[in-house]
């Protein structure tokens, strides 16, 4: 019925699916023997969620009545994402924390879903 009645909730729903896929593949990446495949899934889904964070930010900005939560949450997600990338690229000794950041991103997506429920 009234589930996907606006663009934001649709994008947020896709985001949860992609984030869950990326998170599971990220966990498997640590212990998998076929690391390259897990890595591809993890990166592809992860980078797609970046695009969705940007789309959600643009939707929130273009809205006539700016909802601060709908604006700040994708920006927070983007920030966590960039920190995660920075750790992976530059600070390998902090790698043990990235799975927690992946979990944080899933949680952010749940909040993003919640604030974008159509009213």
């Amino acid at each position, binding site marked *: 019925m009234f589930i996907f009645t606006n663009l934001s909730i649709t994008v947020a*729903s896709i985001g949860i699916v992609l984030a869950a896929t990326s998170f599971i*593949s990220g966990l498997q990446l640590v212990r998998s023997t076929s690391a390259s495949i897990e890595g591809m899934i993890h990166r592809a889904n992860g980078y797609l969620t970046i695009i969705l964070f940007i789309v959600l930010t643009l939707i929130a900005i273009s809205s006539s009545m700016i909802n601060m939560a709908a604006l700040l949450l994708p920006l927070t997600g983007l920030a966590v994402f960039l920190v995660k990338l920075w750790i992976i690229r530059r600070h390998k000794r902090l790698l043990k924390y990235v799975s927690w950041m992946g979990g944080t991103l899933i949680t952010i997506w749940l909040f993003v879903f919640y604030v974008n429920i159509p009213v």
Partner: protein
Amino acid sequence: MLSLTALLLIYSTIIVPENYKTIQEAVTNASLDDTIIVSEGNYKENVSVTKPVSIISRKGPEFTTVRAAVPSEPVFKVSNVNNVAITGFTATGSLLSGIYLYNSNNATITDNKTVKNGRGIILYGSSNNMLTGNSADANKKYGIYLESSHRNSLVKNSASSNNDNGIFLSSSSYNNLTDNNVNHNTWNGIILWDSSNNTLKDNRIWRNRFGIVISGGGNNTLINNSTWSNIYVIMPLILAYIGIISYLVQRRVLQTIYRV
């Protein structure tokens, strides 16, 4: 459009700004039961209606905005008169109200946007009025407020994102609230205060602090109102589960492609 044409044939018509520059001038010079057609544009004035006229915007609320010149007064104030119609305006910028019906009956308020006022629409001592398809959103206090007003119909209106209550009925009876969206208000969605014999049917009252509050009064009828859609509670779990399945599918596809 047909009804508008019919109106034009029966009663004399005044066009704003062609005949009069302001809506108030047009109302002042109108005869009883005249129709005032307002062209698109931004108008800065407070319109006081004290005779039965129909004020209709030509292109609807997206293109026709009336902003309060005196913020302490309503944008449209209908006082002590019956059979007024206000259709298709955005009324904004009043600390009191976008549309205010005072001791007025049988009015038709249709397809207006009363946003960013003190209150969206106020009915005080007004009965048998019809409010249809209005948006009373993002106001400082209430979306729609009825006091000592009886037998009014509120159908397919929106009273959302207001800073207090969505729809407030105070000492008002025999009103009919049907198919309204009352969402995301800071305090109550719909409150019936010392109000009796009202009917609330098929309203969506989501994500307010409290959905429907009844204090005092009695014999109110609530039929098929929804205060939250349960699907949104379990939806994230379903989506996460789809994500896990998506992972397994992608893994199998890539394993097949790369023969790992």
